[in-house]
């Protein structure tokens, strides 16, 4: 076991290095060793795939490593993240080396010979790797071809690019060590700080809207007795959003209204938070008698039109959500004094506007 773990660690380092300029020092022999290790680990994966205890032990070691590498500034994700990755170690390594311009000509030449030996290869492992790479190339051109057919108007519910990113995100989230409760949150916060926020928020929304039985992205089997179900990932996201107010505010403010309604419909906790924000925003508006409308004190405050638009969208949603929203509005109106006359309480006015509209 120890030597196995050592191999794992070494290979993990190797994977990390394979993307750096350090590979310029690699010669064909180094490449050969690296590929051999990858192949050895693939055998390990095949052999121990069914031995749950060994898998768990190995994964624990991998995650320990992760923890150590979790220092700020370093990549959030190390080379090998889970047992599944062992089965594809050679693929991962090969792609990284192929992409790395720092790899010398001799080493690169050797790499190509190993990866693409040509037709009629007797070795099943080599053939499998060559096949995977060819399939990847074919898959890429398929994606390009399908793009020809035009994007069409796609809501975030259906946008394949967002959906794919969402699935990948959930996949990574599953790999975060479960031992620590804060693991996932820290991970998400790191991402929030480092990645373009607009896209990240959209991906979060798409992830929250994935069907509950969404298949795992890389065909991983469900471990017997594993506590994680696909729904857990979404729960982690909700928890994180609720805990991080700036993210939540940005989430609710900048995403398209319809999308938010869908998310609120699926996740009651978020729905409540969203309603909470809406009421906050509503309270900041005051009635301008001369103009005859509700206005905000400052330009960045949510406008009446926007507020109305959001409530309208929520009220168009199917029953549980719609009813909850109306109940909340009624409660606010009651709190304000239950006026029937417009211009006194924004909640009255909203209900009036919604009532006539819907």
């Amino acid at each position, binding site marked *: 076991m120890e030597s196995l773990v050592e191999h794992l660690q070494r290979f993990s380092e190797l994977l990390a290095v394979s993307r750096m300029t350090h590979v310029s020092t690699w010669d064909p022999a180094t490449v050969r060793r690296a590929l051999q290790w990858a192949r050895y680990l693939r055998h390990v994966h095949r052999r121990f795939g069914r031995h749950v205890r060994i898998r768990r032990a190995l994964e624990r070691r991998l995650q320990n490593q992760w923890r150590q590498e979790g220092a700020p500034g370093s*990549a*959030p*994700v190390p080379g090998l993240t889970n047992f599944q990755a062992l089965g594809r170690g050679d*693929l*991962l390594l090969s*792609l*990284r080396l*192929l*992409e790395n*311009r720092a790899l010398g*000509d*001799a080493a*690169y*030449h*050797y790499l*190509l*010979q190993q990866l*693409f030996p*040509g*037709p009629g290869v007797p070795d099943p492992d080599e053939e499998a790797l*060559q096949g995977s*790479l*060819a399939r*990847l*190339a*074919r*898959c*890429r*051109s*398929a*994606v*390009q*071809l*399908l793009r*020809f*057919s*035009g994007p*069409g108007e*796609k809501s975030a519910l*259906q*946008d*394949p*690019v967002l*959906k*794919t*990113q969402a699935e*990948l*995100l959930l*996949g*990574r989230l599953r790999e975060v060590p479960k031992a620590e409760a804060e693991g996932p949150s820290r991970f998400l916060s790191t*991402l929030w700080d*480092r*990645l*373009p926020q*607009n*896209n*990240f928020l959209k*991906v979060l929304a798409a992830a929250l809207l994935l069907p509950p039985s969404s298949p795992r*992205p*890389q065909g991983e089997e469900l471990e017997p007795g594993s506590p994680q179900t696909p729904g857990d990932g979404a729960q982690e996201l909700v928890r994180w959003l609720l805990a991080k107010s700036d993210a939540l505010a940005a989430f609710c403010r900048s995403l398209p209204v319809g999308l938010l309604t869908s998310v609120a419909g699926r996740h009651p906790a978020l729905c409540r938070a969203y309603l909470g924000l809406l009421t906050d925003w509503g309270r900041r508006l005051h009635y301008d008698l001369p103009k005859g409308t509700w206005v905000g004190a400052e330009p960045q405050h949510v406008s009446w039109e926007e507020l109305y638009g959001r409530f309208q969208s929520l009220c168009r949603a199917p029953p549980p959500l719609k009813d909850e929203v109306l109940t909340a509005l009624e409660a606010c109106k009651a709190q304000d004094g239950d006026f029937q006359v417009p211009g006194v309480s924004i909640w009255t006015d909203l209900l009036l506007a919604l009532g006539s509209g819907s």
Partner: protein
Amino acid sequence: MAQDSVGFSSDYQFWMQKLSVWDQASTLETQQDTCLHLPQFQEFLRQMYEVLKEMDSNTIIERFPTIGQLLAKTCWNPFILAFDESQKILIWCLCCLINKEPQNSEESKLNSWTRGLLSHILSAFRFDTKEVGLFTQGLEFTPADYYPGLLKNMVLSLVSELRENHLNGFNTQRRIVPEKIRLLSRICIPLVTLPDIEPLVEALLTYHGHEPQEVLCPEFFDAVNEAFLLKKISLPESAVVCLWLRHLPSLEKATLHLFEKLISSARNFLRRIECFLKDSLLPEAACHPAIFRVVDETFRYALLETNGAPEVIAAIQVFTGCFVEALEKKNKQLKFTFKTYFPYGSPSLVVVLLQHPKEIPQELWHQPLKHISEMLREIVEDQTHRSHGGPFECWFLFIHFGGWADIAAEQLVMSEAEPPEALLWLLAFSYSPCDGSLQRAQTMAEVKAVLIRLKKLLGSPSLSAKDLQAAAAESRDRDPRPPLCQQLIRRLLLNFLLWIPRAHVIAREVLTLLAPTDELTHEMTGFLDQTLYRWDHLRMEATRPRKLARELLSELCPAGTAV
């Protein structure tokens, strides 16, 4: 060698030109032309690889100075990259260009350039927007994680768009433009054998738009059909039926492909034929009358061309059997009258023929047999009303359900009574449909005489092969029997051997006397195979005859029975 290289050089020039015209295959014409040439271009790439792998990088550049252009243009044409193994072969070719020890800046540049192309095909990420790029790379994903997932989601999205379009009816705003669907079908042509694309292919095949003319391009149907016949794609039956209903050439090709398997030179046992048939999905598809008619017509043609070869007749029978089975399974969904399948036959006759012997007790089989015989006789001998075609049409219909003729033959042998005229007529008709009434009457008389003689032999204490042969022989004072009549008599004799326990002992001897030539052995093998097949399907309890039949069959045809 010189000849080869001249040929190859001109190919090279040809393809170079083509690639330049195709460019990135962004117009309808270039796409269509590229798709037409995909298999040949792949072949060329293979040949090119064989040439390149023998040389080193410098020699290649000397010999083919424009190779860089050729390979680059190939890389930039997504239709080529998407097809079958072209991307793999292209990668092999590019690998040949890499120099492991570049001596000067030119060689280094070539290396760098080649690496760029390889990266473009394999390892680089290309994104619509920068944010997506930062996201995916920020989370340390490789192309191997991203692209397969993206492809799957794109396919899902397109499939649901297609299905929604189906339901949207006249809501013209949300409808997909027909041009886009045609484009989609064109795009799928190189991708047909990629498993991830199957759901899209299926959705396209079952897509029923709102336009009167066919919206999918014909090359798409061809590509899917080809892949299906070669088993490179697995499609549900409903999709295959749509394919064949929408594109007649595909159906014709599928039928011919089947025929080649069925009617090959090697002896195919009926079990195997049944497997081929079920595999091909044609019997199920034939539940649609349009498809049935096409297949049936092909059978008719084959029958005429081969002058009624027994193999073809057997194939028709097995096909009809599978077809009826499939029809019964679907009886809730499809309701066509039998006339739509057999327009050339009288409907009442069809109904009687379709009765399954299994559903009638064995003792009562003579009833439907008599009925069938009478109906057929009426139609055939009725000179004035040719409403249901001539004797051939009748006969063609009848042989679809040829089991009845075989049952008639057995009944004649097994029963103690005098051979009924109806059965004799039926047999004579089934073996020789175009006889005039005089000829037929003669045949019937001959057969009756042989049967009587055979049964008389049962009365005597000993039974020898010579006796049987004598009983079945032609009488010298009459005209020689026509070959088909002779065949019929051989058949009856064989039945006699199988069904009369006393005759089992001499069976082999008789067979040797009966079937001295290869051709006759072939005929006997066919009879035995057919009989066993029929008994299995009828689940007949016929332990001893079955055992004998099997033994005889394996002796005649040691190459192996399919059972």
